[in-house]
């Protein structure tokens, strides 16, 4: 299906069952060398199971998975030294310092020439090298985890939910580190349930839902293919505006923050709506017109909205 020289990960008809539960349902995709590939989906969609099969931790029920041209079920010992992994919910030895932890993992890979200082610089932990793991904040722990995943200078880096549970500021800091990896030309396989993370970092995105891949493409193309509208948001308006927009033939949605959101096809529609509202003497405090993002794509493809990894019911599709 793919060119092995170009593709470092090739997954064909991968299925994984846990007893009666079908966690991964015959998925196929491939990842090119040097790209950041985001595996996007809600909790329980099958992301971690898939990535752990590729990482050689789990065995598939059926299907073929090749990593760096090797069968993951047969070549674990050849594959492991060439990949780096940040597992989901990463943790390390509480009383071991940042530098000691990196030295420890470097020894496990027997990688004598690991540039520990370079890694510490890359993940911005220079002033924390003597800090024990237990004293690091969540964001710093994740950054250390990313550095650990790089001790063997891997060809492919797997990051399973690297920013889950972090506050927005810490998440941004991790993104900066991941941008650094991207700039170094590493192939990165990223699983996440944060749409903006995938959109911000990924060259390619595969959306997975209920064990099946429902779309694969670059974030821009996914948006382009699945949406042909603009999203207008009006802030702090009264319900009269809602009625006006509805009577104009649009399908507005009013949320708890007194925001009206509506899809429009052209910028002309925006002007028409604003004109009608102004003519009616209705005031609004804020206005936002933007292209849809992956959140809307996910909503369109699954009919479900996603919040913090959880499917939160039907959206306004």
């Amino acid at each position, binding site marked *: 299906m793919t060119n092995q020289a170009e593709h470092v990960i090739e997954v064909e008809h991968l299925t994984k069952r846990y007893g009666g539960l079908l966690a991964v349902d015959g998925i196929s995709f491939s990842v090119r060398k040097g790209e950041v590939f985001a595996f996007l989906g809600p909790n329980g969609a099958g992301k971690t199971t898939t990535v752990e099969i590729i990482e050689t931790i789990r065995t598939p029920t059926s299907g073929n998975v090749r990593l760096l041209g090797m069968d993951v079920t047969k070549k674990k010992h050849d594959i*492991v030294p060439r990949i780096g992994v940040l*597992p*989901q919910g990463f*943790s390390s*030895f509480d*009383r071991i310092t940042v530098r000691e932890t990196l030295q420890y*993992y470097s*020894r*496990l890979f027997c990688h004598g020439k690991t540039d520990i200082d370079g890694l510490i610089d890359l993940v911005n932990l220079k002033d924390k090298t003597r800090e024990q793991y237990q004293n690091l904040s969540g964001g710093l722990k994740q950054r250390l985890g990313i550095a650990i995943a790089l001790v063997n200078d891997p060809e492919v880096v797997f990051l399973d939910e690297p920013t889950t549970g972090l506050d927005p500021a810490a998440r941004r800091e991790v993104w900066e580190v991941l941008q650094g990896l991207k700039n170094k030309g590493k192939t990165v396989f990223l699983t996440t349930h944060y749409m903006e993370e995938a959109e911000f970092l990924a060259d390619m995105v595969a959306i997975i839902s209920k064990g099946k891949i429902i779309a694969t493409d670059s974030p821009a193309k996914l948006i382009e293919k699945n949406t042909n509208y603009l999203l207008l948001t009006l802030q702090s308006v009264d319900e009269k505006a809602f009625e006006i927009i509805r009577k104009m033939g649009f399908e507005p949605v009013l949320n708890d923050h007194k925001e009206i959101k509506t899809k429009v096809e052209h910028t002309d529609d925006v002007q028409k709506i604003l004109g009608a509202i102004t003519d009616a003497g209705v005031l609004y405090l804020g206005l936002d017109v933007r292209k849809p993002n992956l959140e809307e794509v996910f909503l369109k493809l699954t009919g479900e909205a996603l919040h913090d990894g959880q499917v939160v019911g039907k959206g306004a599709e």
Partner: protein
Amino acid sequence: MNLRVVGANLCVKLLSVYREKTAMFFTIAFPIILILVFGTIFMSQDNVGFHLCVQDLDQTKSSVDSVKALELNGKFKITRVDPAVDATQYVRDNKVDLVLVIPEGLEKALTRRKSSKDFKASVTITYVYDPSSSSVSTKMDILNGVLAGINQEISGNPPFIRSAEKSILTRKYRFIEYFIPGIIAMSVMTLSLFGTVNLNTELRQKGIIRKLSTTPITRTDWILSNILYQFIIAIISTTAMLLVSYAVFNVNLHLDAWLLAFILLDVFAFVGIGMFLTRFVQEAQSAAAAANAISFPMMFLSGSFFPIELMPGFLQKIAKMLPLYYVNEGLRAAMVFEDNLAALKDAAVIGVFAAVVFILGVMATKWEESQ
């Protein structure tokens, strides 16, 4: 197997425990506390001396000499009871278990027996005692022995049957010396068993095992580093126990390579059981409970604290099926009785057990998470 990897693992484990001062303290302190407490109790048993109340109603030189003779026997610490008080009431009021009453007329009767050869002249010494006391019958047996000796001496004939003592040991050992090998065996067992269970369940629950499974470390490297770590901890703990035993109780134990061999076999056996438990009992709390369920009966049944001969027959049979029994017996054979053949036999039994359990433990250890 990769020694560099084993060394890295060992280093991380030792650094972790060194920095966790509380855990380190209790690792060393717990067996030492046991030795201090039990050692103090047993030390007083070695210098056993019964308390004996004597009421001398005769108040003559002969009666006073008799009381002194009892004192010099070494088994009794004598309290003299006023001849004016009622002995029965004295037992009740003073919560003593026995008063030996020397009757009036002891000297007269003795003179009649010795000088006039009046063989009908005799006296009756009365034991006024509290039958609810557990030690009173032992006291009366000892007193009967002493009185028989006195009677025999007064008769003027040399005894026909004499007794002589010959110990199978080259020297007499104290109870504390019997006790310390048992405590070493028990401590190494608990350190290895709980150390393995706690470490592995903690690392698994924290996801560190999952991370390690994405590195080149093998099952053998991991298990070997765990064994070495537990062995080093066991050596540190045993050294501390021996230092305290020598310093506080001035014990006389034979220390040679057998001690190291039995510690190593003890570690292998119980790390093996620990690995087995962690594989099949996933939750940390359940694993610790299972480890308790194994170690507690073993601790009390296998003769760590007292000789199994004190237990009923069926429990003795059970004891001989427990691995810790052979570590206890082997360590005592080596450290107390200096019996190499017995130590070798015990080492063979625990060695086979350790090998089987360890292989099962290795087979049970999995990197991949079964889900």
